[in-house]
């Protein structure tokens, strides 16, 4: 089963989509930044009746310094580890003022989600706060100059995991952690699949309670890729099962939204400088682990 890609046709330019543009040009993201693309698409679907909360991460810089902003929705910046608590506080204040229909979205990086913000995130999910929490995952602390996070895949080069001692542990599986909170909606998506990404925000908007959306977000500087190939690399992440696109409702109903081609993992690895040092053994090991994860997801989906 797939989410209906009804919003616009695959391959059609996003500019043609009629929704309002709530993120303007003039922002400070690097060319080819997956995180910037993702925000633009998400805002188109969420609309203007929205409050956005952003902790320390690249996105704390992207909207521009005071007195500039590229956002046409109210935006609150906050401390690195606080997103879960802050969206809860905004929700409570809006509710007590009768603005129960206004959406509240937290937008944090992988460091702010998998690591330092996990406690506040888990608490907000456990309370089933009526908010959307987005993690745009570029698989390292990029804002501070490419240090590893617990979202960094095994064997990756970062500035704290040099090629002689590359990342030693596999990527933390935040999706299973969030699904285990039995929240109404948990989804993964990627700007390489705009129809899927936007359909998921559209769906999330209709759901009450805690919604967690995990977006793969390429980083040209951190992944050491050509900015022109940013989308291609993110697409390969899904085609090779490195980043499966699926959703989980109420912690138990699994649906695979993008059926991957199941390409060899090396198709994804070889385009990125951060994996260049990997040897055959490491590639094979990575192949085994992505396959295993994919089989597990398939099993959940077929049991749902």
């Amino acid at each position, binding site marked *: 089963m797939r989410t209906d890609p009804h919003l616009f046709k695959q391959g059609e330019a996003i500019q043609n989509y009629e929704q309002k543009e709530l993120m303007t040009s003039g922002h400070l993201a690097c060319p080819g930044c997956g995180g910037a693309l993702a925000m633009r698409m998400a805002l188109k679907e969420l609309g203007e009746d929205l*409050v956005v909360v952003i902790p320390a991460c690249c996105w704390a810089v992207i909207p*521009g310094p005071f007195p500039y902003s590229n956002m046409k929705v109210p935006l609150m910046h906050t*401390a690195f580890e*606080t997103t879960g608590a802050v969206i809860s*506080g905004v929700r409570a*204040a809006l509710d007590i003022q009768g603005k129960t229909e206004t959406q509240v979205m937290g937008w944090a990086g992988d460091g702010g989600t998998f690591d330092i913000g996990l406690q506040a995130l*888990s608490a907000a999910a456990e309370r089933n706060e009526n908010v959307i929490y987005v993690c745009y995952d570029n698989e390292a602390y990029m804002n501070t100059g490419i240090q590893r996070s617990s979202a960094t895949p095994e064997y990756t080069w970062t500035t704290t995991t040099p090629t002689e001692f590359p990342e030693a542990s596999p990527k933390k599986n935040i999706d299973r952690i969030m699904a285990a909170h039995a929240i109404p909606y948990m989804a993964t998506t990627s700007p390489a699949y705009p129809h899927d990404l936007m359909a998921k925000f559209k769906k999330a908007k209709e759901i009450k309670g805690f919604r967690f959306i995990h977006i793969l977000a390429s980083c040209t500087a951190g992944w050491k890729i050509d900015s022109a190939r940013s989308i291609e690399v993110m697409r390969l992440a899904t085609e090779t099962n490195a980043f499966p696109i699926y959703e989980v409702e109420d912690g138990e109903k699994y649906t695979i939204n993008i059926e991957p081609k199941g390409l060899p993992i090396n198709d994804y690895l070889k385009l990125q400088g951060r994996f260049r040092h990997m040897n055959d053994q490491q590639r094979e090991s990575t192949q085994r682990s992505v396959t295993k994860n994919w089989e597990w997801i398939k099993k959940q989906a077929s049991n749902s």
Partner: protein
Amino acid sequence: MSKKEVLMGNHATSYGVQLARTQVIAAYPITPQTQIVEELSEICARGDLDAKFIKVESEHSAMAATIAASKAGARAFTATSSQGLALMHELLFWAAYGRCPIVLCNVNRAMAPGWSIWSDQTDSLAQRDTGWIQIYCETNQEVLDNMIMAFKLAETVNLPVMVVYDAFILSHTYEPVEIPDISEVDKFLPPFKPKYKLDPSAPYTFDPLCTPDNYMEFRHIMEEAHEGTKKAYLDVAKDFSKRFKRKYGILELIDAEDADILLVTSGSMTSTTRVAVQQLRKQGEKVGICKLRMFRPFPTEALKDAIGNLNGGHRIEKIAVLDRNISHGGGGIWSKEIKGALFGMSTAPKVFSYHLGLGGRDITPDTIKEAYEHVKNNDQPKETVWIGLKR
């Protein structure tokens, strides 16, 4: 109609928060603060207060959620003690620099290790530089009244206010407290109407990246707000006293008119000092009290004025600052502030410093008298003197 009840300090806080019609509360349990939020949960459950209560997983999140609620236009409150306040440290800056008019109640409790739940001001005084207004209370009546005034003050100057009082000595001790009628409080404290808030119909960006081109100006604007706070507190207190017949200032002088020596106090030790001073006066000692209510902004001018402008130009020879706190390597925190404030004043008294009551050790009238004997019998202040130390 106001009514009189016998309340513990913590419940005085809860009633103050209720009377202020607080809209969002986010808090986490810690002794000796816990009863504040327990009682508030009851008050909300009874329907006596229409507020959202977020049961967060830490004090760090309590402060974060309180800030967020304030930014989104709600009157917001939290309460904590020691370890919890220390955990909030980063967010205390976010609250103040973000100009959130929120109110926090801190029940003074000693910092660990070793684990101590007893009274000691080091927890709140250590947050000196976070940009918060700090107000210290002597009685449970002061607690309730200052809780209500704190919201008005915060919303007047757009700065967060910390209302502070001693663990157990006030928090768990019952005293008669007059509880104002809520309709009267409504007239004193109208609903919170911030000029800017998170509102989709006017989409502003709050607290973004700030380059060296602007950062300093924000600090300067906020410093002006702090300076203005002293007068703002007096205005708020004046309005309060008109309506509720209880007077508050940023500091208070007791028996100072003809005194040679002033004991400088804060918090509940003031009451003990009153007893000691009465006894000393009976013995003919010329001793008085300067009770400080406000720690930030520091009442420099008020202090100079109080000490320098006594009737007939009477001059205070010595002051003894009683510090239930310690900045290791720096001494008593109130002492340092007072020395800084009086420096360069031609008529400045000699400032003697005393550590006492740390970690909840009892402060009795005898403790105070011991400090008095010391200051009386010494000509020049040397290093800080420890009262009641076991050797």
